[in-house]
């Protein structure tokens, strides 16, 4: 960008590096160079070179984050010397407390395990991805298998650590809930209760009388 003459290739490289930054920023797991190469339709060696350039750029600028190559991929992480700040923050983080939504999701997994993401979504009516990820990261739930059907969806279940935290000897000791849950028909009946859907006959004579007036 410093040249007066535009160098299209240089511009393209800048764009690819920005794309790498954006993808790695939102990725939950380290992003393999091969995947980046595929997404950007560029050779893996170039991707690796650009990632290194980005990483050394951050280091030069003394950023609070680093781009690192771990576990087969690239990810952002906080600079090592800033750990005290990060830890202080995590202790204050709102997410530290289990929200109502998270507790409901955990309860669903506990009572309905093994259960897939889609099944949890169907029960809660919203996308449970974030909550499931948090619960898994905290070690309360884990992948316990794969659905045998098409798609082979991941099935989740609760962990031993979950039982431990709640002081339960085993899953069989979860208090029964079936008797407290009304059937769908009952709920539907309560909801629609007095609602009627009759055919409203708008008295033709009166309306006609009105509309016929000029």
């Amino acid at each position: 960008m410093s040249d007066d003459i535009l160098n299209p290739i240089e511009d393209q490289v800048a764009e690819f590096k920005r794309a790498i930054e954006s993808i790695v920023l939102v990725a939950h797991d380290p992003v393999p160079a091969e995947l980046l190469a595929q997404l950007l339709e560029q050779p893996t060696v170039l991707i690796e070179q650009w990632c290194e350039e980005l990483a050394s750029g951050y280091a030069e600028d003394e950023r609070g984050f680093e781009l690192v190559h771990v576990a087969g991929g690239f990810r952002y992480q906080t600079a090592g010397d800033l750990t005290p700040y990060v830890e202080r923050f995590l202790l204050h983080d709102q997410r530290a407390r289990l929200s109502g939504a998270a507790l409901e999701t955990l309860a669903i997994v506990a009572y309905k395990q093994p259960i897939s993401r889609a099944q949890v979504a169907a029960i809660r009516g919203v996308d449970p991805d974030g909550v499931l990820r948090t619960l898994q990261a905290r070690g309360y739930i884990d992948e316990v298998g794969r659905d045998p059907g098409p798609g082979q969806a991941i099935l989740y279940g609760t962990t031993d650590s979950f039982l431990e935290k709640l002081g339960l000897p085993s899953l069989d000791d979860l208090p029964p809930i079936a008797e407290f849950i009304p059937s769908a028909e009952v709920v539907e009946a309560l909801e629609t209760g007095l609602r009627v859907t009759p055919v409203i006959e708008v008295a033709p004579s009166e309306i006609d009388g009105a509309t016929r007036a000029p």
Partner: protein
Amino acid sequence: MNVATPVYEGPFDMLLQLILKEQVDIYEVNLSTIVDAYLEEIEHMQVLDLDVATGFLLIAATLVELKARRLLPNMADLDLDEELALWEERDMLLSRLLEAKTFKDVAQIFAALADEADQSFPRVVGPDERFSDTLPDMLEGTTITRLRNAAISALTPKPTPTVDLFHINPIKTTVADAVVELLDELPRVGQISFRRLTADLADRIEVIIRFLAVLELFKQGAIELDQPERFGDIEILWSAGEEFDREDVLIDTYEG
């Protein structure tokens, strides 16, 4: 055949649209045309929910009364209280229409803001595994009873959430309606995936209707479709540009 009936979201919405449709020359906006059009629309709604019907009929009654007063040659005969009550009704209706219009316009701004915000994706990754020991125990203080109550609350079947238009459900949304909606929306959005386009629809039938509307627009050459993977999401790209003749499409749509 009743083609391209606008989708009314209630009595105010219907009246508002009927009046503003006449806006070409505001001095020609005519109470009697409006009343006639309103009553005609109600007649088209063959089956009405009782609650809904009262809303529509209340406004119809007010309109008819307004029209009747307008036709009366001699206002002096009228009871003064009745007269005032009528004016009050009219002003109320007017202010409610203005309010409805205000929020309709705000909704458009909200849509634009949301579209723009949707261009960026937030980082919601959280701390990496180096900090897993630092994280406080989220389950601290959670009792088994709380967990059980959460399970009961989550697993109690909820009445099917009907999002849109369930109040005028009997007039099922038609493909023609969906086409009208898409013609309004797609040029603005440019490109959108089908999944996103229908993410907010509660009923499967509504999704299907949208799908048929999309196919119709594709047939008319207004949009391009791309489905990179089998059973994958469908990308919809508005390709008709500004000069696209909406009327052509509307005439040709399926019978709802």
